[in-house]
């Protein structure tokens, strides 16, 4: 049928279009990042604590060297950079729990924002924070006298950062699983235990044999090994790669599944 230009027709033919990229925007990302950086507790856990750990546990090892002559402080610094990045990305991903509890996710369903764009923003926020965690840890290390070949800084830094994507997925997974407003209250201690088993706080060789065997199957082990590989010069450890891939798949698919349940639950 032909539509005549009634007043209603004019009213409804105004600029009506869905948002580009499903509503993903760098402005929103910027606000999200600023939001996290305003949270003092988050900053304490992702930036200050790992740096303080380095000063407490790294500095006393000054002067010690690994088998290849590189400093032990480098080993500790890289491990703690992995830790900082994983705490940062887990907490940023876990923020969806808070937003679900607050009813923000529900509010978003009344806007054209595509759920995938929402998750993309969360992941991007997590990765920016993760990068910040790595950079701060490295800056503290460098300021405290850690000297490493340039390729080690770069490769280890990138691996620690990109590996933390696994934990952004973990954060989202837990965020969509937990109804609680403050997921990080129980995730904090859990991450510390995982970091311990992943050999970020003490070398796994110092743990009992059984623990060492179990530890190799925990989610932090692979990322830690790979991030330190450029330093130790052990080359690519395929068991570690397998560990990262398996946990990335597990958390990623788990988060995706819960996310789909959350968005289709009408």
């Amino acid at each position, binding site marked *: 049928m032909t539509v005549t230009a009634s007043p*209603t027709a004019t009213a409804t033919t105004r600029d009506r279009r*869905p948002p580009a990229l499903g*509503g993903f925007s760098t402005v*929103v990302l910027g*606000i999200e990042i600023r*939001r996290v950086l305003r949270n003092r507790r988050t900053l304490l856990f992702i930036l200050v604590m790992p740096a303080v750990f380095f000063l407490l546990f790294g500095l006393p090892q000054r002067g010690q060297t690994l088998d290849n002559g590189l400093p032990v402080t480098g080993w500790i610094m890289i491990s703690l950079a992995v830790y900082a990045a994983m705490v940062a990305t887990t907490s940023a991903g876990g923020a969806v729990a808070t937003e679900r509890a607050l009813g*923000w996710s*529900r509010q978003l369903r*009344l*806007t054209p924002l595509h759920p995938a764009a929402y998750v993309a923003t969360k992941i991007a926020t997590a990765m920016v924070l993760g990068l910040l965690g790595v950079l701060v840890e490295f800056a503290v290390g460098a300021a405290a006298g850690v000297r490493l070949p340039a390729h080690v800084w770069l490769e280890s830094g990138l691996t620690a950062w990109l590996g933390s994507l696994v934990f952004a997925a973990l954060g989202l997974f837990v965020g969509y699983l937990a109804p609680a407003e403050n997921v990080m209250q129980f995730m904090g201690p859990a991450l510390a235990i995982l970091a311990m088993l992943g050999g970020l706080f003490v070398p796994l060789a110092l743990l009992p044999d059984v623990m060492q065997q179990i530890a190799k199957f925990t989610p932090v082990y692979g990322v830690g090994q790979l991030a330190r590989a450029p330093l130790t010069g052990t080359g690519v450890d395929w068991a570690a790669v397998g560990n990262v891939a398996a946990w990335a798949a597990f958390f990623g698919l788990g988060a995706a599944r819960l996310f789909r349940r959350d968005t289709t639950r009408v």
Partner: protein
Amino acid sequence: MTDTAPAVALAGLTKTFGPVTAVDELSLRINPGEVVAFLGPNGAGKTTTVDMLLGLARPDAGTVRLFGGTPADAVRLGRVAAVMQTGGLLKDLTVAETVRMTAHFYGHTRPATEVLERAGIAELADRPVGKCSGGQQQRLRFALALLPDPDLMVLDEPTTGMDVEGRRDFWQAIRADARSGRTVLFATHYLDEADAYADRIVLLRQGRIVADGTTAEIKNLAAGRVVRATLPGADQAALAALPGVRSVEVRGDAVLVHSEDSDVVARHLLTRTAARDLEITSRNLEDAFLALTATADATATADAGDRSPR
């Protein structure tokens, strides 16, 4: 085709939660430009209906069409926006940040400064949301809903929990907005709000529409007076047969007669019966509301008049 479609078309909408039927085969048509109040007590099914209308809940049966399309289509194009009762705000953002962020979720919006202005919270732009009062937060929700310049604005009990002043300010903001042609649907359990702001009132009870008409028509249901007297063993049938009587209700020894002609009832009671303690009060909208929305078994009521108009 969509341009001639009603703003809202609900057909046979039904939603049950376990044994409870929250919304019961509800059908409703709202034309573009109407300002409609969904009026009913708590548990009447207002929020459930609004949720289904917005696509937040899936009906067990029936259909929802907004401007001829699905709720999801209307949301995607920014044709519908809603102010929900509570929640839905991030406390650690400022008012301005919340508006700016939400604006980027749409393809096209009104300027942020304009919606803050219209919602009457321009001066609160830099305040953290968590430090805003309930009324201010509600006006922020309203500002967010104004962003896409929606053709349909849905408000679900927008003033619940606000003090009198907050309610007045909020409705002032809504009124000031009143863009011609915008369809507004609001749920409320405040009669005065429905009376003051709606052109049309849809009265809900137990998931069904019990009355639907202009504010004047609904008020008309409240016409007449109530004659109350103490009269043990009142003859309900005789009272109901009097001219102008709409309903007769017996509460213990008391009898309440709702009538368009209270004089006739009073004269009858005082001259033909042993009635004493006679009182005559005028019925207001509140009484009509209570009468129409009270559950059927709450009081022993003998209906003389037609209580379900149209």
